[in-house]
């Protein structure tokens, strides 16, 4: 069976793509953010996952309001990035892992998740940026399965439903008949709000509590409604649902515990509280 090695959570912000492209990692504004990543890069270099499942939210590249799936699973051989309209460079195509995609799809539907399947899917910065942050040099060494969770249009799936989805993804990975090593990546959050008179809202105290809960009390955030999470973390802070699903994916099997490899937190990158965590499953 496949080996689920652990999970990663990282924030995504379009400006990060621009900073990587321009080589600004050592500049004063960016250094406190990029300095969080080398310990995670080293852990990944040691563990060498073959495949990543990426939980992320599309920002209007692949999905528009004409058709807005709550949960969408990619099943493509290749995933293309494309112009998102805000001037960040378009990245080369990424390789999919179709076998794992269909194994996950079959398992999720069996577990009564009525997902959308996508044999063609453009992937935006939220999906691609973690790969550039975790493997900054050379070609991306992993294949991937993107899973998009709607955080654009309310009502969003409830936190406990997202947690259940994450668990089912973890079960699917653990039961995949393959010798490959798999990691689960969450892309999103942490606290931030782009719009309204409350734009610029950040909540360091809540973010740090949430990150800590992922180690010791993975279901902690499911006590809140999405409305409460928006109040506590901002309109886009709700993307922490990705992290919740990632953590849930690790809570499977006879040894559902995790060890924190590394975490990092920096305010601000653009208007966002940038979080990073790596959890090893044991």
């Amino acid at each position, binding site marked *: 069976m496949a080996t689920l090695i652990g999970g990663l959570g990282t924030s995504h912000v379009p400006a990060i793509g621009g900073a990587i492209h321009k080589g600004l990692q050592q500049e004063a504004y960016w250094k406190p953010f990029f300095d969080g990543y080398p310990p995670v890069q080293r852990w990944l270099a040691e563990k060498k996952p073959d495949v990543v499942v990426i939980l992320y939210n599309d920002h209007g590249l692949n999905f528009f*309001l004409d058709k807005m799936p709550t949960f969408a699973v990619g099943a493509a051989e290749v995933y293309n990035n494309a*112009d998102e*309209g805000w001037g960040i460079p378009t990245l080369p195509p990424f390789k999919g892992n179709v076998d794992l995609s269909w194994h996950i799809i079959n398992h999720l539907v069996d577990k009564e998740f009525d997902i959308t399947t996508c044999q063609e899917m453009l992937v935006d910065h939220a999906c691609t940026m973690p790969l550039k942050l975790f493997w900054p040099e050379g070609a991306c060494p992993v294949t991937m399965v993107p899973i998009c969770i709607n955080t654009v249009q309310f*009502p969003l799936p409830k936190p406990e439903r997202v947690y259940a989805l994450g668990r089912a993804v973890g079960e699917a990975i653990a039961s995949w008949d393959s010798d490959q090593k798999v990691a689960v990546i969450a892309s999103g959050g942490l606290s931030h709000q782009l*719009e309204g008179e*409350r734009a610029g809202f950040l909540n360091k105290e809540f973010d740090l509590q949430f990150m800590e809960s992922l180690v010791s009390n993975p279901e902690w955030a499911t006590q809140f409604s999405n409305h409460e999470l*928006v*109040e506590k973390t901002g309109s886009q802070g709700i993307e922490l649902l990705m992290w919740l699903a990632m953590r849930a994916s690790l809570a499977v099997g006879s040894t559902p515990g995790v060890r924190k490899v590394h975490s990092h937190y920096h305010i601000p990158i*653009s*208007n966002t509280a940038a979080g990073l965590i790596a959890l090893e499953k044991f």
Partner: protein
Amino acid sequence: MTASQPLPQIPGTYPFDGELARRGYALNKMCFSFNSANNRAEFLRDEEAYMDKYGLTEPQAAAIRAKNVLQLLDAGGNAYYLAKFAGIFGLDMQDIGAQQTGMSKEQFKAMLVAAGQ
């Protein structure tokens, strides 16, 4: 509480729900089209004709002309799609945040930094 009952207001925050998605559909569809460089150029050549093509309501068109983010939100705009509109004019999220909060850009950025202390 059932889903049909209104949720308590979060000050200065407008979760993009079905009501806003209905109200803002034409505006958001136009902004979604700005993923394409050709469409961005076409908009800049003739903003009024481009807005007509997407059938914007008058409040939506007025908000686009004014580049006023709070008006765009009230007209049903979604932050992610509006960001593509803002990108045409080289506005970043701190420009947008400053405009909505009535701060200067420097004040807005200082507020963000202070939240990390």
